C-alpha cells in the first residue's frame, strides 16, 4: 500500500509519456529468447546449422530436449521444423545435398561421431511421420520387425510379449488383437498411426520424434494419440512438430518457435501461450500478419 501514489489526479499526466502495449523482443532480433537449456537433458543441440546445398535451412540453433518432456516445435511452413527434427536421428543423412554442422548429443554422446552406427541410433531416437507408413506386412510383423533386426528378442514368446505390450501401450491392442495376421495397411488412418507409434516404442527408444503425427486424423483419433503422448512421456522424451497451436498447448511442457531457420523463442508452453517474449512468436500464435 505504501508505494501507491496518493493522488489519482496525476494519472493522466503520467500517461503522456506512456509506451503502450506489452514490451516484447522486437521482430528484427533473431537471438533465441527463453530457456533453451534444461538440467540433465536427454538431447543437447549446440549451434546446429543445416544446409541444403547453398540453402541455409537451420541457423545456429541451440536447445535441449529434457527427460520426460514433450517439446512442441511450431512455426510457419518452411521454417525448418522437419529439417531440425530430422537432425536429431540423422535422418538428414539420407538427403545428399544436406549438410549438418554443430553438436548434437544423446545422453552426452555426439550422435554425428563417425563411430556412431545410425541403425541403432534411429531405434534410440525413433520417428513417427505425418502420414502413417506401416510396412505392407501383417500387424504383428509391423511391430516384430524392429526388435528382430535390433536383436532385442530371442524367442517367439518374447516377441509375442513385445508385440502385445507395444500395441497395448499405443492403445491399439483391443482393436487388433484378433487380427494380428492381417495387413497393417488395412487399418484406419488413426489405427495405422498408433501402429506406427507401437512400432517405434517396440524397440525401447529414448526419444520419439513426431512430425505432425495427427494432421491426417479426426479429433477422436487425435485425442487418443495425444493421450498416448502424455503417457509415453513418463518413459521417453518426445519432440513433436505440429501446426495446431491447440495441440502444442495440450500435449507439450515446452514449446519452441522457429522462424525462417532461426529458433526465435523456447520456453514453458504455458508461458508461450499466455505471454510470449518475442514479437514474432506472438504474431504467429495469435494469428496475426507476420
Amino acid at each position, binding site marked *: *500500500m505504501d*508505494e*501507491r*501514489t*496518493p*493522488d*489519482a*489526479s*496525476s*494519472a*493522466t499526466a*503520467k*500517461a503522456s*509519456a*506512456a*509506451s*503502450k*502495449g*506489452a514490451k516484447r523482443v522486437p521482430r528484427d532480433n533473431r537471438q533465441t529468447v527463453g530457456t533453451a537449456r534444461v538440467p540433465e537433458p536427454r538431447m543437447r543441440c549446440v549451434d546446429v546449422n543445416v544446409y541444403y546445398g547453398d540453402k541455409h535451412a537451420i541457423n545456429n540453433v541451440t536447445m535441449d530436449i529434457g527427460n520426460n518432456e514433450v517439446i512442441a516445435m511450431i512455426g510457419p511452413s518452411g521454417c525448418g521444423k522437419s529439417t531440425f527434427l530430422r537432425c536429431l536421428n540423422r535422418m538428414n543423412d539420407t538427403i545428399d545435398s544436406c549438410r549438418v554442422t554443430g553438436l548434437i548429443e544423446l545422453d552426452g554422446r555426439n550422435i554425428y561421431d563417425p563411430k556412431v552406427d545410425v541403425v541403432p541410433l534411429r531405434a534410440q531416437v525413433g520417428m513417427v511421420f505425418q502420414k502413417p507408413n506401416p510396412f505392407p506386412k501383417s500387424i504383428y510383423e509391423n511391430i516384430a520387425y524392429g526388435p528382430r533386426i535390433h536383436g532385442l528378442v530371442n524367442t517367439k514368446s518374447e516377441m509375442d510379449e513385445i508385440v502385445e505390450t507395444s500395441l497395448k501401450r499405443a492403445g491399439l491392442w483391443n482393436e487388433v488383437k484378433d487380427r494380428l495376421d492381417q495387413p497393417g495397411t488395412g487399418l484406419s488412418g488413426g489405427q495405422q498411426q498408433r501402429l506406427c507409434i507401437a512400432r517405434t516404442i517396440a524397440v525401447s527408444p529414448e526419444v520419439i520424434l513426431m512430425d505432425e503425427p495427427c494432421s491426417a486424423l479426426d479429433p477422436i483419433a487425435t485425442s487418443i494419440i495425444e493421450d498416448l503422448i502424455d503417457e509415453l512421456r513418463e518413459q521417453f522424451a518426445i519432440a513433436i512438430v505440429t501446426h495446431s*497451436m*491447440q495441440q502444442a*498447448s495440450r500435449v507439450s511442457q515446452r514449446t519452441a518457435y522457429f522462424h525462417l531457420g532461426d529458433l526465435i523463442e523456447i520456453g514453458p508452453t504455458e508461458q*508461450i*501461450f*499466455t*505471454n*510470449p517474449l518475442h514479437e514474432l512468436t*506472438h*504474431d504467429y*500464435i*495469435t*494469428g*496475426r*500478419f507476420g
Partner: protein
Amino acid sequence: MTAKEKPHIVRSFDEELESMNSLLVSMGQQGLQQLEKAMQALRTRDAELAHAILRADDLVDSMHAQVNTLTVGLLATRQPVATDLRHVVAALKMATDLERVADYAASVAGSTLALPGPPSEGVLAKIDALAVVVQKLLQDAVQALTEESEEIAMAVWHGDDAVDDAYLVLMGALHAEIAAHPERLAVNSQLIFVARSLERLADHVTNVAGHLIYSITGKIYKG
C-alpha cells in the same frame, strides 16, 4: 488492442475484439454518467433524477450480458492465446466490475430517495470531495480502457489511497455530526451508506485497472 497490435489474419476476429472493447468503454462511460447524475441528484435532492438513474441501471446490466456472450463466443470459436486470451479473460472480469460500479452509482441514487432531510453543508462538501476523487479515478480508468494504457491503468491502480483518505475524512465528519446533532441521525446514517457506496465503487474501479494491467502485460495485480 488492435490499434497497438498488428491485425489478425482473420478480420472478423478483430471485429469481435473491437466490439468487446467498445462495449467495455461504453459500460465505463455509462457508469461515469450514472455516478455524476447520482451526485447531482444527491446535492439537489432531485427524486425524479434519482429514479431515472435507477431505471437506467438496466442498460449497464444488458451491456454486461452482451460482454459475457461475446467473450464466451470468442473463447469457443477463436481459441484465443497470449494477448488475445488475456484481453478476453480480462474483459469478462472488467465487465463484472464495471457492472458493480454502475450498481453503486444506483445505490447512491437509492440513498438519495431514502434521505429524510437535507444533508448539512459541511458534510455535503466532504461527500463532494470524495465523489470528485472517485469520479476522477473512474474517468481515468475509462481513459485507460480506451487507450489501453498500462501507465494510466497503473496510476488508477495506485489511486485508491486518495479515495481512502477522502472517505476517512467524510466518515470522521459524519461521526462528529451524529454525536453533535443526534436529531440528524436519520439523514446522516443514509449518508454513511452513500460514503460506503462511493468507497466500494472506487474499489471496483481499481479492480478494472488491475485486470487491464494484466490484459496488457500479463502481470497479475491483486487488491
